[in-house]
């Protein structure tokens, strides 16, 4: 009796479940082929030495131990963190500053917003084609000419070991601040105007208004922007591949570029998979720490 009713319930549940699976079938296939299977094969080949073609050798923890010995990986890691440091705080601050300015009732605000968003909708290749020319070390190239007007001598930008990485970070800011400005604007517009009125009555004005009302209330937005821009910065690739090729002398070799180089130029798929796992863990840890420290996702009022 009990078995029969259990069986009946099972059949009923099965019957109500089945019609739903076709709706998620394609999602599942894409997930399996492009996420699940790659995950398994990443773990698998991280224990091998293989070029995928002629040889395949099990090396145990060899690749993992090599992580600690590879000097260039150390360079790539420090370049990546340096890039994030040079990119994230200035981008977050600058986009907030611009957002506060265009959030006022000023003439043409939406045109400014669209103009600032323009680099963000443009592909990295187009941007790099243009800026490879603009940042040329020639004294009459656009960037150097404009610096010359300010009395600054010609710079070597991308061909200089010291300036290449900061130049790329600044290009990253130029490309993405419009996007973060939009996120800040959404945050700003979510602040109830009564709070500003209350602060005005209390005698606050100008930048003090922002210091005591805007900035504290924007904490959830700030958390989101810092997390997202850090994750983006740690994975920077396009501008490096196109503009510097990791050079000069490894000055712009970041982790993702190093992974690319190890796998697709040197054919070391095992070692590059191991670095990919390391990158994944680093991003996971940083996201977790930032999320905790900034209390990501928490409401303030």
């Amino acid at each position: 009796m009990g078995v029969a009713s259990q069986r009946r319930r099972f059949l009923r549940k099965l019957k109500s479940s089945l019609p739903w699976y076709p709706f998620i079938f394609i999602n599942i296939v894409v997930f399996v082929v492009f996420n699940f299977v790659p995950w398994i094969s990443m773990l698998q080949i991280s224990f091998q030495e293989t070029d995928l073609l002629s040889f395949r050798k099990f090396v145990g923890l060899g690749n993992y131990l090599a992580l600690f010995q590879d000097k260039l990986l150390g360079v790539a890691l420090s370049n990546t963190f340096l890039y994030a440091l040079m990119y994230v705080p200035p981008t977050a601050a600058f986009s907030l500053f611009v957002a506060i300015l265009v959030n006022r009732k000023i003439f043409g605000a939406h045109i400014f917003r669209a103009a600032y968003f323009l680099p963000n909708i443009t592909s990295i290749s187009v941007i790099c084609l243009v800026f490879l020319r603009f940042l040329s070390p020639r004294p009459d190239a656009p960037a150097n000419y404009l610096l010359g007007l300010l009395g600054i001598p010609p710079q070597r930008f991308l061909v200089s070991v010291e300036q290449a990485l900061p130049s790329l970070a600044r290009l990253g800011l130029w490309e993405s601040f419009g996007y973060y400005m939009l996120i800040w604007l959404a945050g700003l517009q979510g602040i109830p105007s009564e709070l500003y009125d209350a602060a005005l009555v209390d005698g606050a004005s100008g930048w003090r208004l922002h210091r005591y009302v805007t900035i504290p209330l924007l904490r959830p937005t700030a958390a989101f922007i810092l997390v997202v821009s850090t994750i983006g910065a740690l994975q920077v690739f396009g501008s490096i591949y196109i503009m510097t090729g990791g050079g000069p002398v490894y000055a712009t070799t970041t982790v993702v570029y190093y992974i690319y180089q190890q796998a697709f130029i040197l054919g070391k798929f095992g070692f590059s998979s191991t670095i990919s796992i390391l990158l994944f863990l680093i991003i996971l840890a940083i996201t977790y720490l930032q999320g905790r420290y900034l209390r990501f996702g928490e409401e303030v009022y």
Partner: protein
Amino acid sequence: METARARGRLRSSGKARPEWRTARLSLRVGQALERAAVYSFLLAVAASTVGPFLIMVSVSLTHNIRFITFPIKLIPNPVTLENFQTLFSKTMALRWLWNSFFVASVSTLGGVVTSTMAGYAFARGQFWGRSLIFTLFLGILMMPSTALIVPQFVVLSRLHLVNTYAALIGPWFASIFGTFLMRQQYLGIPRDYDDAAIVDGANLWQVYYKVLLPQLKPAMATLAVLRFMGNWNDFLYPLVVTSKANMRTLTVGLGTVARSGGDAGLDMAGAVVGFLPTFFLFLLAQRYLIQGITLTGLKG
């Protein structure tokens, strides 16, 4: 309006002095100065974001130009299309342009359709594995995509799919972000619609297609714009899964020739061709794009 607010500010701060009129005047002058400063700053920033693209267009229309040098004439004399002629006749740009259009269109269509389907299942369905699959999807959404680039190539090369459209489109044919977005939309539609249709004898597909989908058009437009732009501008993945020049997308193709440092006019003509499609889409669908970004804080 402005002065009324300023007056209110003076009054409410309790500092209505005898020199009220001069205070108001200096406040007005101060405001005008501040306003001018704000405008010049905003204009300077706008010049920095728009200027490079204007120069790009100008150089692409210039005859025989090897380097971009300042000072520059924004309107070249004579205006010529010869750089574009060379671009389309002597390079692979036209093939890349076609690849990009084909891949981005199919990816967008596929991604939007599968998102509305899966979103429907997750919003309305009761089936085995629902919460497990949902959690797994959420996990993938949080994952850095670049960490998987090498094993994705490994899997595709085992399947002999390197240098195929299938590889370029495949991962874009489903969108977890889109699935969540659509699920949210379905949850905003009362179940009474579904129930009424089912009472009338409709099956799940009819409910999905005839009753609910028409109400999702704005969300679908938003997702479509985000997906198209995301796919068009994608760089690392299409770079890795193609090695033959004739299978490159425009973004990757332009990226691979950028540093060869040839003729500036030809380079900028390529840049213009890469720039215009997303630019026009931005002009046409700005509302959907900005809505999508501010609603979700995510792209693609």
